């Protein structure tokens, strides 16, 4: 009986480790931290493998475990106040070519500047394909809060990734929790 979860874990790792690692990397912004976080997530998944009833939901299940592991890890560190993070969202982008190529490293740099609350929301949107309602439901947050965080986080990414085509805002903005 105890061997059963192990069978699942081998397959889970084989099928999901790449996606989980990518998500972890986008969360942590560092290769070592991403690998550590991925290991934590799979270890937690191994302990909870009995909870996975529908293998088609394995990826979302692992992502949820990963997010929780990440937040637990972050809570142990000295929190970085969002008010201390100056985010330059002075510019709003205008028109762009249809196929825009975004530098993954710049993207990571922009993500690293986001407080966790915003980063989690934006990664759930892009990585998991969650709507703001789904994000609100999974994070047990008000929909308005999620919409606000998502909008402001996207604005930050735009400002960081498309500065040459952006328009200045009337006043500088800071992301606040």
């Amino acid at each position: 009986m105890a061997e059963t979860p192990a069978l699942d874990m081998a397959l889970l790792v084989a099928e999901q480790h790449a996606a989980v690692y990518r998500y972890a990397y986008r969360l942590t912004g560092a290769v070592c931290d991403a690998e550590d976080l991925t290991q934590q997530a799979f270890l937690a998944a191994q302990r909870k493998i009995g909870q996975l009833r529908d293998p088609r939901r394995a990826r979302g299940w692992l992502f949820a475990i990963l997010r929780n592991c990440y937040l637990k890890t972050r809570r142990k560190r000295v929190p970085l106040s969002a008010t201390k993070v100056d985010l330059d969202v002075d510019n709003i982008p205008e028109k762009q070519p249809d196929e825009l190529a975004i530098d993954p490293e710049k993207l990571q740099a922009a993500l690293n500047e986001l407080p966790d609350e915003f980063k989690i929301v934006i990664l759930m949107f892009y990585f998991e394909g969650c709507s703001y309602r789904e994000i609100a439901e999974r994070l047990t947050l008000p929909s308005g809060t999620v919409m606000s965080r998502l909008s402001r986080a996207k604005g930050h990414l735009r400002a960081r990734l498309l500065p040459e085509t952006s328009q200045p805002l009337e006043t500088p903005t800071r992301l606040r929790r």
Partner: protein
Amino acid sequence: MNDEHFDRAVGRAMEQVPLPLGLAERLLATLQAADGQLAEANRPAQGSWPVEGSRPADGSRLAEKNRRVVSRRWLVPASIAAAALVAVFGWFVFRPVYPPMGYEDVIADVGDFYDQEAAAEGQPLAVVPSADFPLSSAVVTNSSTRWRPVSKLLGRSTGVAYELTSARGKRATLYVVDLNSRHRPIATNSLPSSPPNNGIFTEGRTMGAWSNGTQLYVLVVEGDDRDYRGFLRRRDHLA
């Protein structure tokens, strides 16, 4: 650039993360270390652990494995249920079967019980007669009559003992238990329906037993046959 284009571009960029070499192998080694049972049996029969390039296109393998896992999970409750059925059947077949107790058996058993009670500390007595185990109308009672609950008498979980005192100061105990018990069946046809006029005298006491409906009465009197009869109401059939 509109939001849709921007979202698509960011979404593509999100996925562009190079994987460290040997990540899957390290993960599996960590999991193996954490769970010693993630072992050789879990390795594919041919080849090594699945790596990035050989990952299945969908979750079909995992789904198939999990179906088997779910099937195996049912084995445990099914096994428990089967074991329980076997245990019940075994108990039914091999359960201790007690032969019905005859009159002498009842007297001997109650005598032993009486001795054990006498060796034990006194128990609290109640004045109000027990409703479940009523007194026998064939026994002489008075205002000093008390009762107390007893257990494990003749295999019954509950019963009652009435403490009686005669006008001459003799003491007696009247035990009342339910006849309806499969644990220690009593051959009711061996019991009279009223107190026998002559009790069984042994070890300084005289005992008699009878049944009335579902109740079994056993009277234990400290003394001889004369003392015994002193606790019985005079009736024609007792004469």
